[in-house]
């Protein structure tokens, strides 16, 4: 959190922050400068309402805090109070939006949208009316992979969202469970573009949460914001992050973001690049942190702030160069992908063989997704 605030304030990175109650006590959120709160989004994180992980307990409106020993059947009973306090907290704190949270469900029972309405969405919409705020309202939506790739399920989800007159936009989370660090499923990426595009056609604001580099690809569908997370578990949504029963896993290998490669490169390849690839430093862009990290004695560790502040710095720069209109932006992203694939080719020519989490194998699916998305636009007559 501190790094994100420092990056936002000192490095002028990004347009705002997403505040995570899991990681930040309520009193600390309230103490943030008003200038930060006004351009930031508070994500209430009701994903696992029974969770007592991290700092969630410091929020009196969090369901498990409100009701000790919370059972799922209690949700509807307590939600009216939770919703009103949560909305009031966001309004009083002067955040940019009022965010309606959502629950995470492992499976999708046939009535789950109705369940969400009854347990969370309707009580929150009531609370927004009761509090009388004029702040725009974002509805948190987790789209599971099947809802992203299957056109019928996608339409059902979009119909549900666009049927809500009282919301101004969506805090969209595209869940893609995978074993690789990057999304390599062209159908999923194309489906994500179609969802963002459909929401924009319906005049809704779209903030896409929990992105890795695919945030750049998503930008061609015109979202209002793409969130960039620092740690790996903030660059891909997983409910495990909120789960107290989760077994502690080994820290990930440190990685450094390369804007030219559109990839996070594991530190195990940095020294090989230094030895074999002329001009290797330029692959990583320029930030105030590179000179320290490129020292041969730099102690790589996945918790070093320099890795993430560098990422924020160069990725933010990359996003700011994205062009308008969207057709021009797509050409620009296509060129970025072509250039990155060209760099990966020269890296292999130089005798460097990164594995599937540091190579360019996620980029051909970006091309496939853009082709699929273009066909979709053509079918819509756009």
């Amino acid at each position, binding site marked *: 959190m501190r790094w994100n605030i420092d990056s936002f304030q000192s490095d002028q990175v990004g347009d705002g922050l997403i505040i995570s109650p899991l990681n930040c006590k309520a009193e600390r959120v309230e103490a943030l400068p008003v200038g930060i709160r006004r351009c930031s989004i508070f994500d209430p994180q009701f994903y696992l309402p029974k969770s007592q992980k991290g700092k969630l307990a410091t929020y009196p409106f969090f369901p498990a805090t409100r009701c000790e020993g919370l059972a799922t059947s209690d949700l509807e009973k307590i939600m009216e109070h939770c919703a009103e306090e949560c909305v009031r907290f966001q309004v009083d704190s002067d955040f940019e939006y009022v965010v309606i949270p959502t629950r995470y469900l492992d499976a999708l029972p046939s009535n789950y949208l109705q369940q969400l309405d009854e347990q969370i969405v309707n009580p929150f919409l009531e609370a927004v009316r009761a509090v009388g705020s004029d702040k725009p309202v974002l509805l948190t939506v987790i789209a599971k992979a099947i809802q992203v790739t299957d056109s019928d399920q996608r339409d059902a989800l979009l119909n549900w969202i666009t049927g809500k007159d009282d919301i101004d936009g969506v805090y969209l989370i595209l869940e893609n469970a995978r074993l690789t660090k990057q999304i390599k499923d062209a159908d999923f990426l194309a489906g994500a573009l179609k969802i963002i595009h459909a929401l924009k056609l319906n005049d809704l604001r779209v903030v896409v949460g929990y992105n890795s580099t695919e945030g750049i690809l998503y930008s061609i569908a015109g979202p209002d914001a793409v969130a960039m997370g620092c740690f790996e578990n903030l660059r891909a949504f997983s409910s495990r992050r909120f789960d107290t029963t989760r077994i502690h896993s080994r820290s990930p*290998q440190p990685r450094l973001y390369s804007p030219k490669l559109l990839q996070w490169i*594991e530190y*195990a390849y*940095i*020294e*090989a690049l*230094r*030895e074999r690839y002329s001009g290797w430093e330029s692959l990583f862009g320029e930030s105030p942190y590179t000179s320290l990290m490129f020292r*041969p*004695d*730099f*102690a*790589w560790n996945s918790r070093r702030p320099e890795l993430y502040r560098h990422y924020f710095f160069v990725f933010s720069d990359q996003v700011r160069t994205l062009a308008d209109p969207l057709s021009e932006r797509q050409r620009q992203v296509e060129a970025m992908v072509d250039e990155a694939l060209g760099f990966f080719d020269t890296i*292999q*020519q130089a*005798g*460097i*063989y*990164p*594995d*599937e989490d540091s190579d360019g194998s996620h980029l051909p699916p970006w091309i496939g997704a853009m082709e699929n998305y273009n066909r979709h636009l053509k079918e819509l007559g756009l």
Partner: protein
Amino acid sequence: MSFRTEDEMSSRFLEALVPKIERLGAWYLREIDSGIGIPDYLLVITSGRAISYIVGVELKLRNWRRGLLQAFRYRNFTNEAYVVIDRDHIEPALANRQHFLRAGIGLASFDEGGVFEIHVVASPGKPFSKLLAERITVRVSEALSDFDWDPEMTSYEFVRTNSRRRSLIGFREYLAKDALSTFEAIKV
């Protein structure tokens, strides 16, 4: 006949090559966690009470590409690295030998009869990463201390000793009787 599992291949590999490795005066260490991967074997040459040379070995039944990617990572903390593939499945790897040559990673085959052949000789060099080489040195030293080996140096020194060239030739001579001729034939 092919090996059925990597464990079977590994056991046979040890039976066939340990005597040669021991004659060379080298140590072999199985599955030492480097922090970025676990090589099937590390062959370690010591010079006095210092580590002077490390070779990483990755055994694969057939997946040459996976082996190449793993062995390439081992070059962060070894002087050379080899992929050893079941001889019955070596052809696809040989058809892609240019990748091994380009990466400087050695390619060898091994069969149930204990025949070991080096097809591409690894390019020797300092480990890519000082940090990871220092880390493996500590772990290797700890492992060797179980054999009453008392390390003098637990740092990056093994890449700087003068015994490197002698050790390298020794490995080729001992591990495969025709390794040097293979080496000359492909003119690396």
